[in-house]
């Protein structure tokens, strides 16, 4: 019997040693791997994404233009050569060049200054309305996807209703109810544009919901709030960034359309869409007046769209090798 126990003790010792050596082996393997990759610190998801994004020349160019537009909007009072509201009726419809680089409008106001101030309106409408849409869309999408059941049915139904109306018509109705003005424009576009985000987030969440790390969190007693904020939100961020970036040009275009129809920004405030609207009457004699804001809108929309594409490529794990 004594022999037997000592034997089994030996066996246990051998086993323990074997495990220790196994563990040591794994550790050394890992060290070698770590050394191979150099003194690489933890490369976060965002660092990797930024490295991929940096290689996209068009994306970088668009980012540069967007930053430029933002700077113009922020420093508009410093950049504008004239007061955008100062009328000079003796100087109406001046062609570009000379003292007024972009010419003047029907009240003799400096077009360049009005363009610079209009940039503020366009960008702020894009960003603020998308921010509103983002919050509503994320909360709706997460609730629908995570809780499922009747919550999902109700939210999906609302999304269906919203997207079955022609967008501009709906926007016109909402603006008519709220009344024109910049703040109302933010709210109206935000209230109308969340459905796309919600639908994408819902899909993402339904895919992620079954993930084992979320089951693990629930098993440890994690609340729904924790699951949403710690697990679902970080994994939806790339979707959110891409949809918002692609939503901004839509909002800018909608602002232009609504202002063109007279339901958006009210004169004398400058907005690109409203400028095109004003230029419509003289489009044959003073073509430059409608072309300049038109080109600005095209450039802004295109730059945001291309930036969104580049971001999607950089943030989507499936696009990585």
């Amino acid at each position: 019997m004594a022999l037997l126990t000592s034997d089994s003790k030996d066996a246990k010792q051998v086993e323990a040693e074997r495990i220790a050596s196994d563990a040591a082996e794994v550790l050394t393997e890992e060290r070698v791997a770590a050394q191979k990759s150099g003194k690489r610190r933890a490369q976060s998801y965002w660092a990797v994404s930024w490295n991929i994004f940096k290689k996209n020349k068009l994306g970088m160019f668009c980012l540069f233009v967007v930053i430029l537009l933002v700077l113009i909007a922020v420093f508009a009072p410093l950049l504008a050569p004239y007061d955008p509201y100062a009328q000079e009726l003796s100087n109406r419809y001046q062609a570009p060049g000379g003292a007024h680089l972009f010419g003047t409008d029907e009240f003799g106001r400096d077009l360049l200054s009005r363009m610079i101030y209009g940039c503020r309106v366009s960008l702020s409408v894009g960003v603020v309305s998308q921010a509103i849409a983002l919050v509503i869309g994320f909360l709706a999408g997460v609730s629908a996807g995570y809780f499922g059941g009747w919550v999902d049915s109700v939210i999906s139904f609302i999304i269906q209703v919203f997207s079955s109306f022609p967008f501009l018509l709906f926007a016109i109705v909402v603006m008519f109810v709220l009344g024109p003005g910049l703040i109302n424009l933010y709210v109206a576009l935000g209230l109308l544009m969340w459905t796309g985000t919600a639908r994408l987030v819902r899909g993402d969440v339904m895919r992620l919901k079954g993930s084992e790390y979320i089951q693990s969190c629930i098993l440890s007693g994690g609340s729904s709030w924790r699951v949403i904020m710690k697990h679902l939100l970080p994994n939806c961020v790339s979707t959110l960034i891409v949809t918002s970036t692609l939503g901004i040009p839509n909002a800018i275009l909608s602002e232009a359309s609504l202002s063109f129809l007279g339901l958006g920004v009210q004169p004398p405030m400058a907005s690109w869409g409203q400028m095109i609207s004003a230029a419509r009457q003289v489009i044959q004699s003073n073509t430059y007046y409608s072309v300049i804001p038109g080109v600005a809108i095209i450039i802004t929309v295109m730059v945001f769209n291309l930036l969104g594409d580049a971001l999607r490529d950089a943030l989507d794990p499936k696009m990585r090798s």
Partner: protein
Amino acid sequence: MAKDKELGEVILKAEHLTKHYPIKKGFFGKAENYVHALEDVSFEVRRGETFAIVGESGCGKSTTGKCVLRLAEPTSGTVTLDGQDFTALSGAELTEARKKMTLIFQDPYSSLNPRMTVADIIAEPLDIAKTYKTREERDARVEEIMSKVGLDLAYKYRYPHEFSGGQRQRIGIARAIVLEPEIVICDEPVSALDVSVQAKVINLLEQLQRDLGLAYIFISHDLSVVKHISDRIMVMYLGHMMELATADELFANPSHPYTEALLGVVPRITRERIQDKKILTGDVPSPANPPAGCCFHTRCANCMKVCSQRAPKEFEIAPGHVCACHLFDETLTEEERTPPPEV
């Protein structure tokens, strides 16, 4: 490995666990039929033992694990954990009781949140249970567990995608044991890993069992792994318990025709060809429409007339060795014992 562990007290008792999943049909989602994932399964797990559940894919192994944890609510039946009716708990009591029971997942890739660092993943149960007072305490606990599962402390702030499958599984194990549970349910913990890594992870699990006195419910389809690690084994088929015995007894003396067939196909390095043995023919019947009588009779080599008529009772053919098969029923008539007519 030595199987001479003294028997601990029963810490988990599952009784008559049944799980039916509704198959949704029709506009109002009215259930027309049910998938019989689990039918009247009972077993006990003792402190410090490894209880294995084996069977083909779709036999209800994972469902058993999920029902025990209440990741899926069992349709009927009870789970008793430490003398407490686990199936009746809810809210804070459930959260508290769940600390005693954790899960290691099969897929080391989908079981770790790609946006969290290793330290945050391991500390998540701590964060939820709020077991620490200071940041330092949390860090210390994470480091302690990391070294216990053989992870280099330098990797604390790395992300899961920077690790290999084996290392990821170690992270998953670390998360499972950080709250010092009593039972760890291992749902095919090594089947997604390379064979060489499998051995290391199995050794780690065994070492942790010795150090922490854990009980494992080890769900696997790999009989060679199960033979190596488990104390007792339950064989399942189509949601039913077929045979339950100690590992040595089951491999030495497989009694159920299904177990025999299952053990017959374990690859071994011998000159004997697998083809010479009994090999199961046909497919597993659909659990939405299980066969009448004994659920295995459609593929059984020893099928008798009675087998398609009623389900077998469980017979204890040796101490601790239970087998659900009509072959061990002494009360059957000659008529019932005749083979069924050929179809």
